[in-house]
């Protein structure tokens, strides 16, 4: 596979995902490698995202690549009214690879059809953020030793959270059992549940997770945002139901780990941070290794 864009997690087969995870493992052992020497990587952040951008730029720097681009569309010619089409045409002639984040859904797929160089999607609106999914998979495999037959709890905003949708799709390839815990207004969309049913996978929906937490291998926490509720009273009712506290971890499995795509607000209480089951900060570091592997993979670079 050479010069293949990475727009959606479905762009890679199960085998390709495993190859990337294996490669990321090598980068974790030895992150500094001169594999992108003389390569120019464009990072186009039409929508600001400091965390994702720094993670990519760190990955590129560790591989000896050069970076061009912008961190905010207000400093690019987008403000002069340039179309995405023209920006991509221009930048693809200056660079070997484009990493892009854009507020419009489908923008990365469209860019991959215009660009002469591969595109890595660093988030297109509420649609896909596949490098986040890859680092989630990496973190799950690293902490559990396998991706097979796990029981994954997804907690919080399951309606709008693109990270949980992508992770659900990805994990559905490994015979996962899913537990969806969310307020009524933020339930997992039907199309995703139908997707699991068609695959014959088990899923359970709950409005609270205190009593069932002992079954989890992975708890994937997300932020319940006030602005997602049509009725502010509904938010007030549920805002403390989806908060993970250290006292809740007493009867959890020894292998259980807590993940969160970050930033966190109050959904994981800070007394969890010191628990050996808290894994969200390591998870963020894993993002650099997985992005190193993805950069190499799309450019057809072998270790």
């Amino acid at each position, binding site marked *: 596979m050479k010069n293949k864009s990475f727009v959606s997690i479905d762009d890679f087969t199960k085998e390709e995902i495993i190859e990337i995870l294996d490669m990321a493992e090598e980068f974790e052992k030895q992150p500094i490698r001169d594999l992108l020497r003389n390569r120019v990587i464009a990072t186009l952040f039409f929508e600001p995202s400091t965390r994702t951008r720094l993670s990519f730029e760190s990955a590129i720097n560790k591989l000896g690549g050069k970076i061009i681009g912008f961190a905010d569309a207000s400093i690019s010619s987008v403000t002069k009214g340039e179309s995405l*089409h023209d920006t991509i045409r221009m930048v693809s002639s200056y660079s070997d690879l484009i990493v892009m984040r854009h507020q419009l859904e*489908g*923008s990365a*797929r469209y860019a991959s059809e215009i660009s002469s160089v591969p595109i890595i999607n660093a988030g*297109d609106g509420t*649609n896909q953020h596949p490098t986040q999914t890859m680092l989630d998979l990496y973190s799950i495999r690293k902490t559990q030793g396998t991706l097979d037959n796990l029981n994954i709890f997804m907690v919080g905003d399951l309606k709008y959270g693109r990270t949980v949708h992508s992770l659900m799709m990805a994990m559905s390839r490994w015979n996962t059992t899913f537990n969806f815990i969310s307020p009524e207004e933020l339930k997992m969309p039907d199309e995703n549940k139908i997707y699991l049913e068609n695959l014959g996978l088990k899923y359970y929906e709950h409005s609270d997770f205190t009593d069932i937490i002992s079954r989890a291998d992975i708890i994937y926490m997300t932020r319940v945002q006030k602005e997602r509720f049509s009725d502010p009273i509904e938010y007030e009712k549920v805002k403390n139901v989806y908060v993970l506290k250290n006292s809740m971890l007493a009867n959890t499995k020894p292998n259980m780990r807590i993940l969160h795509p970050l930033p966190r607000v109050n959904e994981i209480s800070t007394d969890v941070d010191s628990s050996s089951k808290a894994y969200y900060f390591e998870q963020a570091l894993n993002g650099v290794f997985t992005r190193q592997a993805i950069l190499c993979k799309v450019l057809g670079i072998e270790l």
Partner: protein
Amino acid sequence: METTDSKETKKKKMSVSAIKDGTVIDHVPAKSLFKVIQILGLDKIDNQITFGTNLNSKKLGKKAIIKISDKLFEADDINRIALVAPDAKLNIIKNYEVIEKKKVVVPDTISGIAECMNPKCITNVEKVTTRFKVISKKNVSLKCHYCEKITNQDNLHII
């Protein structure tokens, strides 16, 4: 009695005059007539075209019929109208006789006909030809190739 009946039937049939050779598209919902004309580009060809609309139909209530002289359609072209006229039937006419009947089939992919219902989809902001995968043919449901959101029959807008 019989003679009157057949005369009446004939009269009915002739409400849109017959063509010698070409294609008759029947069972088009009346409200979709102009969409069908647009999708097939009938407003841009020189062939002789006659059509009738708001004709009584047991099945559709009000139907339209289009007769295009000296024109045959490829299956791929004609299936493009399936989104707006799923029950349409084609009669291929040669020397005033129906020599073949065809039904439209909803294709597996749709390109450039429907709008994506997601206002934040790139296809609604830049000049991008829409593309969909048809995930349900009965109650038409389309998955956008770009934003991956679903557009269903109720939200379907033809470009």
